């Protein structure tokens, strides 16, 4: 942890018609640390990610990334691909979005599209097979392989991603996100579908990324063994509002959090009927 703030969220609000998915959320995400976002289903966690990464335009509020070289970047003003390309904020998805028919290696090379496309001079250098492009292409493959090696995925390099089991797909998706060269990595339930051994490996990987690679991580997770073990800082959401924030130890004993998770007053919630 550097003690600096990488991402600051101010008064973020997201409404869909009458429904307020995120309600006046303010949050500081520290640099080179792991920040956990937890909360019951429907708390607005994924919506928060969508606002962050340009998939939704927030109704109100601002999200600012303090880029070490490019200075502050207002994420809400950027289209989603610019969020990844310029601000280097890269995400994974709760329901895994791999390029199913493409092989694992292809998935990881596609993630390096922008650099490669520039090297291929919009395909002209590529069609002519100029040495500059070939060097860039080889480097991209090397980079992909090195991440695959790190994640212990070398034996499935040439397998179409869609043919892999769920847990493996999760890890491939993380490897692919890493190929985009992220400053902030937003992981949406990376441990879902992993077995305990894989889960433990994920913990090691996340810690390694922060400590060795200098990546900051924003983590949505239901698996408390992951969140509580790796997070430096945790933010708890319920009904779109932040109900608690602090270290794992603080969160564990927070009465609001316990109430939200045990769902005292949730029995009275009317089940929304189809209208």
């Amino acid at each position, binding site marked *: 942890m550097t003690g600096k703030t990488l991402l600051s969220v101010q008064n973020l609000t997201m409404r*869909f018609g009458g429904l307020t998915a995120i309600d006046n959320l303010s949050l500081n995400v520290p640099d080179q640390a792991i920040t956990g976002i937890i909360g019951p289903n429907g708390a607005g966690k*994924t919506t928060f990610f*969508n606002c962050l990464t340009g*998939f*939704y335009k927030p109704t109100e509020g601002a999200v600012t990334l303090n880029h070490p070289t490019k200075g502050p970047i207002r994420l809400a003003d950027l289209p989603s691909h610019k969020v990844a390309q310029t601000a280097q904020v890269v995400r994974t*998805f709760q329901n895994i979005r791999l390029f199913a028919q493409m092989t694992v290696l292809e998935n990881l090379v596609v993630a390096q599209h922008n650099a490669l496309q520039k090297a291929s001079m919009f395909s002209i250098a590529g069609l002519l097979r100029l040495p500059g492009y070939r060097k860039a292409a080889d480097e991209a493959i090397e980079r992909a392989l090195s991440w695959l090696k790190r994640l212990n995925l070398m034996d499935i390099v040439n397998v179409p991603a869609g043919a892999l089991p769920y847990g493996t797909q999760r890890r491939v998706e993380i490897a692919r996100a890493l190929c985009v060269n992220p400053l902030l990595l937003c992981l949406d339930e990376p441990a879902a579908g992993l077995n305990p051994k894989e889960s433990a490996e994920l913990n090691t990987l996340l810690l390694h990324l922060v400590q060795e690679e200098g990546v900051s991580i924003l983590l949505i997770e239901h698996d408390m063994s992951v969140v509580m073990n790796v997070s430096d800082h945790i933010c708890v959401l319920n009904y779109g509002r932040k109900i608690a924030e602090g270290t794992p130890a603080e969160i564990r004993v927070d009465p609001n959090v316990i109430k939200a998770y045990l769902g005292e007053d949730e029995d009275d919630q009317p089940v929304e009927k*189809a*209208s």
Partner: protein
Amino acid sequence: MAQALQQLINGLTLGSVYGLIAIGYTMVYGIIGMINFAHGDVYMVSAFIAVTTFTLLAALGVSSVPLALLVVLVVAVLFTSAYGWTVERTAYRPLRNSTRLAPLISAIGMSIFLQNMVQVTQGARVKPVPPMLSDGITLFTSGSYSVRISSAQILIIVLTVVLMAGFTWLITRTAFGRQQRACEQDRLVTAFLGYNVDRIISLTFMIGAALAAVAGVMVTMYYGVVDFYIGFVAGIKAFTAAVLGGVGSLPGAMLGGLIIGLLESFWASYLSPEYKDIGTFVILIMVLMFRPSGLLGRPEVEKV
């Protein structure tokens, strides 16, 4: 002025027909989220059924036009519903959980199939039926121009209004209507509640086909000339109407139909009869670009 009024009447007639076909598109889109590309051809099939039935009745010596029309309507609605059912059962149901493009391509295949089936079995020539209900009422005369509404036009407009009323009742007041709307909201939950979703979808296709059949009979009677190609053009225009009104919205489909009908009528008489179809297509593209949810539709949120 008189000409404008006349074109208003002509446009309303045309728009009623488009509206009736558009409902089939909108309902199907609402319930299974696909464009039933073959719907226009189902309408075309109904027109051919109408021609055969008209001819048969004439040969049997039925000379009362109202009786003949009634019989033709019933026959066309019944047979065309069967076509609607079969189209869904064979080409779309097996692909219900497939990618988005697969059922669309299958639908295009079905459209080509129906068009060519009719061409092979009924011939490629135009089929005429003798004129009927071509008398009418002269509303008023200004100068040498008399504004006139023919009996056929009155029938088309009145029948459309009645059908729309009945249909609105069906969707808002009956058990089937509730199930149908539930299905549109969430198919899975509807199935969990113990309703037969397959049956609801099949019925939706049959109702859509039945309304298209009414349109087919009306057009056969009104224009008197039918060929295997009418489904494509009418289908595209009705689809444009559905999109314009907001896909999934029933009043929207009707409204869209009327707007397209009026647009075409006025375009043909004031601008250029040659480019009226281009007008329709330009509207289609404009609407999809600037207001993809249509006039009465609800905007859709992209699910990430």
